[in-house]
C-alpha cells in the first residue's frame, strides 16, 4: 500500500528513489534505486529533519513541513509525514525541484491516510 504511493513519486523524471522512515531511523518501505546505504540514508534523513526542526523552534518559525537539499550532483527532499514518520526523496541534479515538490504535495495526504 505504501509502496503504491512511493511508486507515484519515483515515476517523476529524475527521482532515483524514496523511502518512508521512522523518526528513529528505521526504513518502513522504499522504492527505486539509490546508490548509497539505505540504512545510513534513513538515519541521516531523520537526524537532518530533527536538526532542521530544532532550528525552526530556535527561530520560532513553527512546524517544519519540508526540507530541500541541493547538491552539485543531486537533490534530496525530506518531508514530514507525521510526528513519527518522514519521507525522503532522492533525485538527480537534473530533476525539476518544482515537479518533485508538486508530486510530494499531491501524494502526501494519501500517504498519511494510508499510514494512520
Amino acid at each position, binding site marked *: 500500500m505504501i509502496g503504491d504511493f512511493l511508486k507515484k513519486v519515483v515515476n517523476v523524471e529524475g527521482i532515483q528513489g524514496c523511502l518512508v522512515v521512522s*523518526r*528513529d531511523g*528505521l526504513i518502513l518501505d522504499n522504492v527505486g534505486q539509490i546508490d548509497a546505504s539505505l540504512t545510513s540514508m*534513513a538515519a541521516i534523513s*531523520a537526524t*537532518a*529533519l*530533527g*536538526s532542521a526542526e*530544532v532550528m525552526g523552534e530556535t527561530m520560532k518559525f513553527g512546524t517544519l513541513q519540508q526540507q530541500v537539499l541541493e547538491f552539485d550532483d543531486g537533490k534530496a527532499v525530506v518531508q514530514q509525514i507525521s510526528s513519527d514518520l518522514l519521507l525522503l526523496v532522492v533525485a538527480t541534479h537534473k530533476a525539476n525541484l518544482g515537479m518533485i515538490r508538486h508530486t510530494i504535495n499531491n501524494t502526501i495526504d494519501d500517504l498519511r491516510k494510508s499510514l494512520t
Partner: protein
Amino acid sequence: MVDKIDKRAVNAILYGVSASVRKLFGAGADAVMRIAGPMVLEEFEKQGIKFEGKTSSEISDELKKAMLESGMCDEISIEETDTHYNVNIKGCSFWETTMSLRELGISPFACPFANLAMTLLEKNTGQVTTIEKIEPAGDAASLVSLKKV
C-alpha cells in the same frame, strides 16, 4: 595508566553527549543510536568481547556476562514475548545520567543497554526492533521495551 575510572566522570561525559545530541537533533537523536549501536558493538569486538548468541536467550546470557564484567550494571536480562523484547537492568552504573536527562525532559535514548540489545538482536537474530519505552523500574533499575518491527 589506570585501568579503571570514576563512574562519575563517565556519567558526566555521557550526560553531556546525550543532552547535546538531543539539543542538536531533536527527535532525530534516536536515529543517531541506530548508527552508534553497530559501532559500539564493533569496538567491543575489537577489544575481544564477542557476542555470538543466535537466540534472545543466548544473547541475554552473553550480554549479562559482558555488562557485569565491565561494571556497567549489576543485573541484565532479556525476556522475549510475541511482540517485544523486555530488557531489565538493575544496578545501572549510568543511573545519574538517566536521572539528569529525565530532569531535562529527555528520555535516555542513548541507553547503552537498550542500544546494545537492539543491535545484537538485529545482527544475530535478524529481528529489527524499535525502542518503545525506557522507564524507571526502581532504584538504579530500568525496563527497556523493544518492539518487534
